[in-house]
């Protein structure tokens, strides 16, 4: 029991630290691709501290606050559902379906908070973000189905065990893994699928009224988001975590792929994103599914 409680505290903390490194990696990769030096080592953490140390901050009401609390708290809770080397947390209580829906709680919280801000840019951003979710979640659930069918379980711990005994999922389900990678781009909300942020057009959409610790909370959320995406994909296809060094290598490589793609693309309009997401990853997912299930 004590170990479980320790794990429940440790897992979000580890996720946050790793997530910060992933944010740093994203910014470094972006900088290097643009032939810049990029931010210093502690930049992601410094940004968060800075935001939380603002002296005058405005709130648009209680729901604005609760939105940020839900966004951060929801991710903190979700991290305990993701098994990492040596720590399973409560991964066996939920499984992949519960996790997928758990990850909607932070987004819902954010959406509520943005709604309370009464800024049309924010609302447009949320409407686009939800549409984007509708776009990428369809191929994503196909992937989830295929993976769970292949492993015969929805329990993420069991999936890791299976892969460590029988080889990685990416080898056995390459097409599904490809479709999963495609949707990862959408899940992480990076270019070319970041129309809902669109800084120059709708002033960063959901973030438009977020300053101070509100924005700081969203930066924390971003760190969690990257970590979650990386670990989820690694758990589904790359054999999960055997030990920390290989696990870290895997998740950083997984996260770096969408990031590298992101910095080479402008963005798609919402409707084009829908078409793209409902076409290629869905086709790939269905083919992969057919191969898995035949």
């Amino acid at each position, binding site marked *: 029991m004590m170990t479980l409680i320790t794990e429940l505290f440790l897992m979000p903390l580890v996720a946050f630290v790793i997530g910060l490194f992933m944010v740093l990696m994203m910014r470094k990769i972006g900088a290097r691709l643009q032939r810049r030096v990029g931010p210093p080592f502690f930049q992601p953490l410094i940004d968060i501290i800075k935001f939380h140390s603002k002296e005058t901050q405005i709130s648009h009401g209680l729901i604005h606050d609760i939105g*940020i609390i839900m966004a951060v708290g929801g991710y903190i809770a979700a991290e305990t559902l993701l098994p990492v080397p040596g720590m399973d947390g*409560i991964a066996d209580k*939920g*499984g992949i379906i519960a996790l997928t829906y758990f990850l909607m*709680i932070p987004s819902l919280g954010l959406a509520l908070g943005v709604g309370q801000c009464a800024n049309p840019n924010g609302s447009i951003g949320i409407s686009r973000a*939800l549409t984007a979710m509708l776009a990428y979640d369809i191929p994503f659930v196909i992937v989830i189905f295929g993976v769970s069918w292949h492993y015969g379980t929805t329990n993420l711990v069991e999936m890791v065990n299976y892969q460590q005994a029988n080889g990685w999922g990416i080898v056995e389900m390459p097409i599904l893994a490809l479709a999963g990678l495609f949707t990862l781009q959408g899940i992480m909300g990076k270019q070319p699928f970041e129309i809902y942020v669109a800084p120059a057009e709708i002033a960063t959409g959901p973030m438009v009224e977020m300053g101070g610790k509100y924005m700081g909370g969203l930066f924390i959320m971003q760190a969690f988001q990257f970590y979650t995406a990386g670990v989820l994909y690694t758990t589904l296809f790359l054999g999960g975590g055997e030990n920390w060094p290989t696990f870290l290598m895997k998740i950083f490589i997984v996260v770096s792929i969408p990031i590298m793609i992101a910095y080479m693309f402008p963005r798609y309009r919402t409707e084009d994103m*829908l078409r793209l997401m409902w076409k290629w990853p869905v086709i790939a997912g269905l083919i992969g599914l057919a191969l898995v299930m035949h």
Partner: protein
Amino acid sequence: MTLLDGLILLALISVLVTMLGYRLPVIGWLTSALFAGQLLVLFLMSGLGYGGDTIHSSVALSIFGQPLSWRFDALSWFFALITIGAALASSLFAAGEWGRQYRQNGGNPGLLQFSLALNVLTMLILLASGDLLALFIGWELVSWASFLLMAMAGGAAFSWAMRYITYATGGAMAILAGMGMVYQMTGSLQYADLMAVAGQLSQAQVVILSLLFGSGFAIKMGVLPFHLWQAGAYAETPGPGTAFLGSISSRMGLYGILVVLVQLIGLGRLIEIDISFTWLSLRDLLMWVAAITIILPTFTALRQNDARRLLAWHGVGQGGYMLLGIFSATALGSSGGLMHVFNHATYQAALFLSVYAVVHRTGTADLNKLGGLVTRMPLSFLVMLVGIIGLAGIPPMNGFVSKWLVYRSLLIEGMPLLFVASVIGTLGTILSVYKLIHNMFLGQLRAEHSEIREAPWSMMLPMLVLSLIVFITGFMPGLALDWVAAAQAAVGLPVLQHSLGGVEMEQGGLDMTWLVAVLFAGFGIGALLFYSTGKTRHVNQLDNYAGGHFLTADVRYHYSDHFYAGLMHRIGHWYRESFQWLESVLISLTGFVAQGASGFYRIVQPALLMLVVVVLALWVVR
């Protein structure tokens, strides 16, 4: 006199009291008390919900040599619990200030209470039916009682109610035809006799029987393609009536399907029947109908600009999950489908009531004319928030548990496309409910709404209790799953082994108590982080970034209309006029089926009355 007699007698007394005393100012409270009494009797019968023996009524009749009997088993008890609970919540909502305002606006709250009581009575009679003839009588009573509730507002409501009764009569014809077939085959209308021969029926007979009964009951349920009456008819019903209809009324169709298709004929027979030139069995076909029932109405709901219509369309769509779960015929899936009946009733009633609380204060349910009400009606917002999380099927509310059970069973059964279809429905629901809560409660508060107050306590109480139930049965789904398991046993479905937190399984179960506890612990840490740093100051909504523009109160900048512009750009043209086309096809088809059914009808009972009613009704609707 058994408890069942007592229950029905009490329901009858409620009807009589409301009929005689509908002018009394306290009739609302009186009816609520009577409903509470019925609920109490139901609790006395709660042994049924935990696997107790069937309770028979001491009343038995015989018509044309056909014995009629009534009884309550676990399934009836489960549905009756939801029915009376929904009626109590609706009646309580209407009892206080809502009723007064309704009277001032020219409505008759006593009549509303009477209709509610009548609906409950007829539903109890239907749920208690112990043979097919009693089932049919109950069915007709329920149809006409709901017609009364739908039509009582007059005007648009009446024409929608006419549309409903047209469909319902068609459905009744189909059921009657099915009964005629059963009678020819077995010479009796007893459940036991049909059950005994179900194994020996030819495939053609099973197909015809399930189509006749299935479509008859599916009309009430609003299953595609018989769904077109439902959203309009429910949305036009006055206030709490909508909540009652939306939460339970259409599930009577599901009860019929459970009794006839699942209990009597048996899903095993449906699985055996392959449809030529496809890989589908009859059961698969029905599951696909259910899946389409999830998707199309949900995406129709997405387009609605009236909060009541939006919810009513979701009511149609959510019915698909119940069917999908039940037709999966597994312990997991059918428990998900059955539990969804309960869950849907709780959150749908809460949602409708909170919408009507807003309508009570603002006078409109138009999603383009509201906004920012969270500061004025925070409790209604809370109720709606809990409701939409339940409706969208996101943890920690109960809607997630039942949907999870359905997904999980589809996963185990290896039905990927149905799985994807049901998730698409959930995603569409999330989009649509966010639009609902955003356009009503978030965003800019209109100047004309700045003096609005929270709904009175008489209205808040049922809403808060309902949302509490939504949360608690999400946190501890085992509470509801006990009843579901008993109901499963009663209709002969495999019974789900469950724990208080959900399902424990080798290949990935669910434990909601842990998940919800950890979730709230996460929120706690988030709140600690948030509130321990930096002081904030609340500002007016006009202190807002608008590219350096000075916002003023007279400019409306709430982003509400055409909320999902990008999505509609892609899928908007898929809607087109297809629904109107479908409806016109259906109306002709109903007439056609009605004619065919009347053939059977003439054989069984020489009366053309029904046909006349259908023709007349069709003529009115056209």
